[in-house]
């Protein structure tokens, strides 16, 4: 390689060819441009004319220069120029490429990999054994030293992990390695515990070079509620400058599409490591948020998932009618209100009004009897996934509900009267609660001793009582029972919602039980105790880039572990669910901060920037080709041939443009919507389409002349794209070559037929086949029409409306005159009334007309209004054409007016009533 300045040449000898250029100059200059030969009759007028000057026969200097430049560029290109040629670098022995590979690396992962690739390329050139290791995912059995080329091919599969690198483990890992090696450490630039030990260990083995990017890191902590708004803390590692970062809240909109719901800017003052984004949103919108993210950086750290702690459930509270006013502490709902107000949105009102708001939970405190309509509506709501929580009370105990048979909205049958224990008039002491059994949603909650029950309603023993019981008293009587209804469930507390029958509402257990039932939501940070006993299955996990990954194959995590867990290989950041409860494990915990890494003195730290070798061969040759192309244009210009070339270019430039088609589409739709337009199906056979167009044009003209229907020019429709709803009538000539339309097209056609459109199928073969499906077109028609929603058919009966919609007709000829024209069959109960000329064939336009008389040909006119095709012979033929037109007019009248004519059977009765 030969290097001048920033450019090197791989084969510099070729540059010697540049010496030929002056010779080329002289040669090119000596040859004038070739003449064009033109045939031109006017030459006789040119004879004897002389040119004014003879100098322009030489190639102009600028054209020569252009050509020489092109040749020079080609020579330089073939000499293999290289920008930023790499001078060879020293180095020997094995090389360890250590990558942090945490979430913070994801922000410029491509740049890191490019740098690693450059290192590997260099190592491959020198034949160094190389190993690549991620600090977040250390290879268990030592550094995998291989050839660098091998690692280069495996590099794309090296991906960062969505957690922090553990440098303490890394130091141990390095200690465990054998032999000496140099190290390139691609670090994420954040402060991690134990860095000095790693640096020390690596320096012991060989030369250590650190690459670290200067890009600032931003991260989000989990969101939390604070005085009515959601606060999302935003962290950064470089604190010098003031900065603004926007935070986006993403979720599903009502149509189910994922979109940005809100965007808030967090402001960093100079010196701040943390800023807060406050989202003040209505509950409907707030409940939809599934994640917060920082648009400026793509990493797991810049994503904060939301869980139940942000979901405020809508709870409807209803009680039996209050008979006593003012006794607030005795009000059935008082304790519920106190318990839920903090964490849920409460709704009051009538049961039916409340259900309209579609709450998550309905709480009925001591409500016994409901109106039939209310009961049905509530049952329907529960069936669709509602959670109904009922509390017992004097009214329920006194009522007959769920006595003899189990009420649909009660989990169990009740014994009449209930029982009272531990009162002044009874022997027993108040009962305490038994520990919650496994399988109960309350499993794991501690049972405080002070909770006592003095009165309850009792469940009737039954085969499924045991499985429906989720909490019991010490003596085994059910305290809470549950029944699933459809997707929802009914839960009955056998005590009152207030402190009248038990001290449960006074204890913390009451709130915890409501939380477990997902009536209310939990506080932001669940403790291990809260989650004990449940196994949480990951529903969604994040990769290092903050994208949601598949969680299906991951093992569940025990609740105790999950509380306060750090993201790691066993519990990657994501969303974990157990039953109704969902907990988000975010990349950054509530206390985590991020700081810039500090390196021990003496460590070599480089930036990520890499000046790569660029081959200039391609650009140089492209330049040569470009110059030659300019030369072609210039030569054409000089010889006067450019005009033709311009014409070609102009033709190319005027090729139709999509937007133009779009506007003409719109115009067609506007036209079709504002006028009556007859339409036909484009079959792809140009001749058939032309005849259809001409036929409908002829029919349109006749309609215009004879009736008040004034159609405009007919249009051809492509079934795959056209909007059929604008056209009342569709003429469909059946050709063998037509493709069967797609399923969507059939769906549209069926919608068209159901909404009152009419299709006229024309097999155009009535002279060779009677209408029985034996002709090829007939069979193709069967194939085309099979997916269509077509009612039973019959040949046009004599009293069909088509026979008298405008003209009185008994024949329906086109170019052929066959009687076999089929329409929708009359209802079987249609009967002829005495004295009426027609049956009373109530409403409904036939959606299809099938025949083979080739009507379009009979109707067809050319642009001058003359008939295009002969029909029959002589006067009879013209008569047949006239009847064909009349049939067409009847048909369009039938399409447009429905069975208006059929209603004329009522005219005598109407006249009679009018006293005529």
């Amino acid at each position: 390689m030969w290097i001048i300045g920033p450019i090197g040449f791989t084969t510099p000898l070729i540059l010697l060819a540049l010496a030929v250029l002056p010779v080329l100059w002289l040669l090119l200059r000596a040859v004038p441009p070739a003449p064009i030969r033109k045939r031109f009759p006017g030459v006789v007028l040119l004879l004897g004319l002389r040119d004014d000057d003879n100098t322009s026969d030489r190639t102009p200097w600028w054209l020569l220069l252009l050509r020489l430049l092109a040749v020079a560029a080609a020579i330089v290109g073939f000499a293999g120029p290289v920008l930023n040629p790499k001078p060879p670098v020293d180095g020997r022995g094995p090389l360890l490429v250590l990558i942090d590979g945490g979430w913070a690396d994801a922000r410029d992962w491509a740049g890191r990999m490019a740098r690693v690739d450059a290192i590997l390329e260099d190592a491959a050139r020198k034949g160094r054994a190389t190993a690549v290791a991620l600090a977040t995912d250390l290879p268990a059995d030592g550094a995998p030293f291989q050839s660098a080329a091998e690692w280069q091919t495996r590099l794309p599969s090296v991906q960062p992990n969505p957690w922090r690198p553990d440098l303490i483990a890394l130091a141990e890992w390095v200690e465990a390695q054998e032999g000496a090696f140099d190290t390139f450490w691609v670090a994420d630039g954040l402060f991690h515990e134990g860095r000095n030990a790693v640096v020390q260990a690596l320096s012991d083995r060989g030369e250590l070079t650190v690459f670290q990017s200067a890009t600032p890191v931003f991260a989000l902590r989990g969101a939390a509620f604070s005085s009515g708004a959601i606060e999302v803390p935003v962290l950064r590692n470089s604190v010098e400058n003031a900065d603004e970062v926007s935070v986006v809240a993403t979720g599903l909109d009502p149509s189910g599409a994922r979109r940005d719901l809100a965007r808030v800017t967090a402001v960093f003052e100079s010196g701040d490591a943390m800023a807060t984004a406050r989202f003040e949103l209505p509950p409907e919108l707030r409940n939809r948020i599934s994640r917060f993210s920082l648009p400026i950086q793509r990493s797991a750290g810049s994503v904060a998932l939301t869980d139940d702690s942000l979901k405020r459930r809508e709870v409807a509270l209803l009680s039996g009618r209050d008979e006593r006013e003012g006794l607030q502490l005795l009000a059935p709902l008082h304790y519920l209100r106190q318990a839920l107000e903090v964490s849920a949105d409460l709704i009051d009102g009538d049961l039916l009004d409340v259900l309209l708001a579609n709450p998550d939970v309905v709480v009925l405190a001591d409500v016994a009897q409901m109106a039939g309509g209310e009961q049905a509506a509530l049952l329907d709501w529960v069936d669709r996934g509602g959670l109904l929580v009922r509390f017992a009370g004097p009214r329920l105990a006194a009522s007959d509900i769920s006595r003899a048979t189990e009420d649909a909205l009660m989990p169990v049958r009740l014994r009449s009267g209930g029982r009272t224990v531990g009162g002044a008039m009874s022997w027993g002491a108040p009962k305490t609660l038994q520990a919650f059994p496994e399988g109960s949603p309350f499993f794991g909650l501690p049972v405080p001793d002070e909770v006592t029950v003095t009165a309850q309603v009792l469940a009737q023993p039954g085969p499924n009582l045991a499985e429906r019981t989720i909490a019991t008293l010490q003596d085994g009587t059910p305290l809470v029972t549950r029944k699933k209804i459809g997707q929802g469930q009914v839960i009955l507390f056998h005590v009152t919602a207030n402190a009248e029958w038990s001290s449960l509402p006074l204890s913390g257990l009451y709130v915890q039980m409501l939380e477990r039932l997902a009536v209310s939501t939990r506080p932001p940070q669940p403790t291990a105790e809260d989650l004990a006993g449940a196994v949480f299955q990951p529903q969604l996990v994040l990769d290092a880039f903050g994208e949601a990954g598949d969680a299906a194959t991951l093992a569940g995590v025990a609740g105790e572990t999950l509380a306060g867990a750090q993201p790691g290989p066993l519990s990657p950041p994501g969303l974990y669910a157990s039953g109704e409860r969902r907990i988000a494990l975010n990349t950054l915990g509530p206390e985590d901060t991020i700081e810039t890494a500090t390196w021990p003195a003496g460590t070599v730290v480089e930036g990520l920037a890499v000046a790569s070798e660029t081959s200039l061969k391609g650009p140089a040759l492209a330049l040569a080709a470009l110059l030659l192309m300019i030369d072609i244009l210039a030569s054409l210009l000089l010889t006067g041939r450019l005009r033709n070339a311009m014409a070609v270019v102009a033709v190319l430039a005027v090729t139709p443009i999509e937007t133009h088609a779009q506007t003409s589409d719109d115009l067609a739709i506007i036209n079709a919507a504002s006028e009556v337009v007859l339409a036909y199906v484009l079959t792809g056979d140009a001749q058939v389409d032309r005849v259809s167009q001409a036929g409908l044009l002829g029919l349109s003209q006749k309609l215009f002349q004879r009736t008040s229907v004034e159609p405009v020019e007919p249009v051809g429709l492509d079934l795959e794209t056209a909007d059929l709803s604008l056209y009342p009538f569709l003429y469909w000539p059946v050709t063998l070559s037509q493709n069967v339309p797609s399923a969507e097209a059939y769906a549209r056609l069926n919608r068209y037929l159901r909404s009152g459109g009419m299709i006229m199928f024309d097999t155009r073969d009535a002279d060779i086949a009677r209408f029985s499906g034996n002709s090829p077109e007939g069979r193709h028609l069967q194939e085309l029409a099979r997916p269509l929603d077509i009612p039973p058919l019959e040949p046009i009966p004599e009293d069909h409306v088509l026979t008298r919609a405008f003209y009185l007709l008994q024949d329906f000829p086109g170019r052929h005159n066959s009687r076999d024209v089929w329409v929708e069959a009359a209802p079987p109960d249609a009967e002829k009334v005495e004295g009426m000329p027609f049956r009373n064939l109530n409403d409904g336009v036939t959606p299809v007309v099938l025949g083979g008389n080739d009507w379009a040909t009979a109707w067809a006119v050319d642009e001058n209004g003359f008939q295009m095709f002969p029909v029959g012979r002589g006067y009879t033929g013209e008569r047949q054409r006239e009847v064909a037109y009349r049939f067409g007019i009847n048909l369009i009248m039938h399409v447009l007016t429905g069975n208006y004519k059929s209603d004329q059977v009522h005219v005598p009765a109407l006249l009679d009533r009018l006293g005529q």
Partner: protein
Amino acid sequence: MSHPAAASLRSDAQALAATLPPLLAEARHLAATVLMGEHGRRRAGQGDEFWQYRPAMPGDPLRRIDWRRSGRSDAHYVREKEWQAAQSVVLWVDNAQSMQFSGDNARPNKSARARLLAMAAAVLLMDGGERVGLAGLALPPRRGSLQLLRLAETLSEDQTSDDYGAAESRALRPNSRALYLSDFLGDIAPLELALAKAADRGVVGALVQVLDPVEEAFPYDGRTIFESMGGGLQHETLKAGDLRGRYLERLAERRDQIATLARAAGWQFETHHTGDPALQALLWIYRALEKVH
């Protein structure tokens, strides 16, 4: 029809002529015309068919009064006949090689346009009852659809190998009319001769110069060798663009020359470009042959 090209030429011409009312060439000397046309002129004049009775006016010759009609009333009536006239029209269409030129593939060559115009004029004239033939000895003026077929066939025959055509001056009938279609780029002497003879015999008519738009624009640049269509003439230039002005001058000069000749002989002269619709030229021919001098 033996010649397919002739068939298509005839049908094209009939399509073009179908949009105009029948054309009747005005006879210049009514008295001198011996042959009567088929169709009346829808006005009183000389002819065989009864046209109308009109009250006799002072100055009407006594012998023109229709006594039978006058006997039925008190006034005197004159019986008028319908004016009927027929004229012989000869066509000459240049069939030299220069007429084969077309500056653009999308345009018909000059010969095709000239033949179409001639044929269309012939159809119109025939519809008007005139007799139409070709100048020279090949096809004397006749009437009837057979003559139309012959005209079409003769016009569709192959071109001569001459570079430029010479105007036909033989067998011009006295007091007939003529229509000459050519580019008139060749030697002007035969045209002078033909017009002189025509003037001698009382023949008037129209000259239509059919040119391609390229011949009017001369859109050439650079080193060019121009050849005539037959290859007989050549002219080389290094800068075709410089010749444009002088070429156009010469073309205008030639046109002036022809126009002067035509005026002197009482003929009409018009230039038609193949880039323009043929109907324009046909309309002009219609007017020109109708014009009374």
